[in-house]
């Protein structure tokens, strides 16, 4: 395991060229040497610095989960299935229009709109699709703009590029929507703040999205082009298990493909990710198995608690208790992802003492290596 911060050449050699890049965007946006283009991180020129933020913040270079957990949650990394939790519940947007635009319950859009309206944040960084269906990060400053970012297309995208692109001296208080790998990169930035980028103190609210894996844009877009007309797609959806489908909403029609085939377009790096529930955020959420139109919500920090309480009070969110069985399933799935990741890493390195990027305790490692995992699953 390499723990030293290195430069851009090493980032490409060790991570990107080896198919380990998550396209989180931590290395893009404030550096003229690296760009994101059509689903890939590209080096325009060689920066001969021997240490760079690009390498340091990458979620696939050495990541000390204890340090991150201490920074975000004030406690060492426990390795619990769904991370540090204050409260788990079920929610949906109080406003039916928001729900109609949203992927599931519209909770993300509702919370961000509230944070903007309340002045908790001045701007929110989220994603929206370009004409080529490639999601990219963008900055929303109003509820209306937040709704433009509603919906998911399951492709990896560089949300942190938009954060890095904020002016260095910006005073905007920010909210940000991140996937688990992006949340880890963001947490690494908070642990060791960059000197020449927008201040990490500005990031006031992070909302995480549950994620089993993401699709690689370049290969998946080829599939879309060959099977569905990209311009006509209104929404992408992976319904909760046991549907095992990938749905394209084209106008009012739904065109479905078996999920097993779509899995071929996964980012290879997702196999090594142990975080399903975006553990290093203020709030994280996903769908609810068997209950359509609602979100599972994990509140993790005091900031998270505050905004959820406020939302409840103002009726911005409808809140219910998450059925106990759902929580059990969620934890099972999250644990399986952890175990699979560690086992896949050891298979790749061929050495139980080499966990590539992952800095976890020997205890946790032993537990995850011995956990029996079932066959292919997720989403």
């Amino acid at each position, binding site marked *: 395991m390499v723990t030293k911060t290195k430069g851009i050449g090493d980032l490409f050699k060790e991570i990107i060229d080896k198919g380990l890049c998550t396209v989180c965007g931590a290395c893009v946006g404030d550096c003229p040497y690296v760009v994101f283009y059509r689903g890939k991180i590209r080096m325009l*020129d060689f920066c001969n610095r021997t240490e760079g933020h690009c390498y340091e913040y990458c979620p696939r270079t050495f990541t000390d989960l204890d340090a991150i957990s201490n920074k975000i949650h004030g406690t060492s990394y426990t390795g619990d299935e769904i991370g540090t939790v204050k409260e788990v519940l079920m929610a949906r947007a109080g406003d039916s229009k928001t729900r109609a635009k949203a992927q599931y319950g519209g909770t993300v859009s509702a919370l961000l709109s509230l944070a903007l309206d309340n002045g908790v944040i001045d701007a929110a960084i989220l994603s929206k699709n370009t004409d080529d269906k490639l999601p990219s990060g963008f900055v929303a400053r109003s509820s209306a703009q937040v709704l433009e970012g509603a919906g998911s297309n399951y492709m990896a995208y560089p949300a942190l590029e938009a954060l890095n692109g904020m002016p260095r001296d910006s005073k905007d208080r920010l909210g940000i929507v991140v996937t688990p790998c992006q949340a880890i990169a963001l947490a690494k930035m908070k642990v060791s703040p960059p000197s020449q980028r927008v201040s990490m103190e500005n990031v006031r609210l992070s909302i995480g999205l549950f994620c089993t894996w993401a699709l690689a844009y370049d290969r998946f877009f080829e599939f879309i082009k060959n099977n569905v007309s990209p311009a006509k797609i209104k929404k992408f959806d992976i319904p909760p298990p046991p549907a095992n489908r990938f749905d394209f909403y084209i106008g009012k029609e739904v065109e479905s493909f078996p999920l097993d085939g779509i899995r071929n377009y996964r980012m290879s790096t997702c196999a090594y990710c142990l975080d399903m529930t975006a553990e290093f955020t203020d709030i994280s959420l996903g769908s609810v198995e068997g209950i359509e139109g609602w979100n599972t919500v994990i509140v993790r920090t005091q900031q998270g608690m505050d905004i959820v309480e406020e939302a409840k009070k103002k009726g911005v969110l409808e809140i219910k208790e998450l059925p106990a069985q759902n929580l059990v399933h969620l934890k099972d799935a999250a644990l399986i992802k952890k175990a699979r990741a560690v086992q896949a890493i050891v298979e790749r390195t061929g050495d139980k003492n080499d966990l590539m990027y992952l800095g976890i305790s020997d205890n946790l490692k032993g537990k995850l290596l011995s956990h029996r995992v079932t066959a292919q699953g997720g989403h």
Partner: protein
Amino acid sequence: MPNIDMDAPGSNQLFIGNEAMARGALEAGIGFASAYPGTPSSEILGSLSEVAKKRDIYVEWSVNEKVAIEAGAAASFAGVRALVAMKMNGLNTVIDFLSTITLSGIGKKGIVVMVGDDPSAHSSSNETDSRPVSKWLDIPLVEPGDFQEAKDMMPFLYGISEEFGTISIMRSVTRIAHARGNIKLGEIPKIAHKARFEQYLDPAAPMPTPIMCVPSSFRHMFQHMRMDKVREKFESCSFNRYVGPDKPDLLIITAGSGWLYSQDAVNALKAENRIGILKLGTLWPLPEKLIKTHLSKADKVIFIEETDPFLEGVIMEYTAGFSPESKRNLFYGKHTRHLNSFGELTPDAVIKAITSVLDIKYAPRDAEYMKKVEAVPQGHVMDRLLTFCPGCPHRASFWAIKNALAMDGRNGFVTGDIGCYTMALGPAGFFQTRTHQCMGAGAGLANGFGQLSRFGFNQPVVSVVGDSTFYHSIIPALVNGVHNHSNFTLVILDNGATAMTGFQPHPGTELTAMGEPAAQISMENICRAIGARVEICDPFDLKDTTRTILDLVEQDQGARVAIMRRTCELVRQKKEKKPYKMQIDPDKCLGEDCGCNRLCTRVFRCPGLIWDAAAGKTRIDEVICTACGVCADICPEGAITKEAIA
């Protein structure tokens, strides 16, 4: 530049070799001159173009050397003396025509090809020696050994051309063509040229028409016989001469600049009594009798000549036919490794060779000399790599090409061509150019790369050419690419100038060599007529240019064209003032920090930007910055600003 047509016969003037040759051509009474520019030959036509109207001669910068020589031959066919100038690369492209005109013969008036060779390839892609062409194709060839000869050989060579009915060649090298020396002027005749293509029907007529090379084998025989007659003439030519003792310990056989270096060497070694120099001016056919006479007087012989062992080879070959009783010489030169058959000849190299053969001790300078020389300019001369001028559009073009190919991510590359942009092989063009051959070759190579997908080839290919090069030799390659569906992008860097050789007109520019309005040929119309998709962009708009290239590259089929149009900065700044006030905000400049790491002075590297190591910031060199404004667009922090000057 001196006035090459001054009416001052008998006066001494300081001319560069090329001006001396142009003056010689005027004294020979030429009526027609054509050329394609190329170092070290460009000043010949350049200086003639300045006096063309006054002297009532026709001067033309032709689209390429092949058209130039064919146009010149037409003048000869119609009874007007013609001069055609080119560099050695140009000669290579006209070999086909030379091989037929040497069979067909010329018109009533002479035609001379002036070819400038560039030993050490100071400004060339190769250092070919042109002389072997004369032997190969039976064409008389002379080479001036000094500046006076550069002029005087011209009228002489027209005499040879007309007396024997053959095209003739004068070879010079950079150190004759570009160095300056005294010449004594002769008279420029006043000739009222009359051009007419006589069409004799009688085969027995002095010059039967059609002028043709058939029956070729029969004419080939005459071609050889003609050379025997020329050889006889050369035996008594004053351009061949000997200086030295009657029976020297060492005979130098030399020509061209070797003559100057040999004199220097003998002088430096104070060996005038031991070494003789046979200086040859007529190099093909060789004055064999003269040579044999001198060979009989010396045991040891060394050949001093630029580049190839041409004299060395042909003279040793000639002596192989001597009778067994004849004197046998010990020959030294390139075949004995006393001299190199590459790189430029120097007086030092000549001295070293001679002292080695004669076992003379000679120390040209004290051992510390080079150290002292290197110490002198320290701190006074800026350390700078070969690069584009400040404000050069090519730097911006290659920046966009580099970024586009990097974003595409399929390991695309540039096939290069001949012009200022050849420097893109190095840091000036961010190492984008990956092949470098001759004019037009980049597009030809792209044609081939573009057909290799059936063998798994998937890299984007970008052929980058200049505007002058486009007209010179790219059009057939584009025709081929479109016709055969080859997959490549042709980028034409249209800076409106033949910049590298000195801003000669080309078919896309406004004026002819005579200074008259030209019919400008639109390169985009040509490309579109061929059937290629054409996009035009301004390289200073980096964003748009990058997007355009990326879009063309991603099209991934057929031959398509981007024209990056922006006037050469050296041309622009003669007409316009600086467009912007450029400033750098030191508070915003990140210097070597993460997030920049000197992108502007480490990668972009415009000479107008200076890295102030002490301050850790970039500064603008106010003296040479042309305020093109491009660096303001590459600075990631917006520290460099451009403010339009009203």
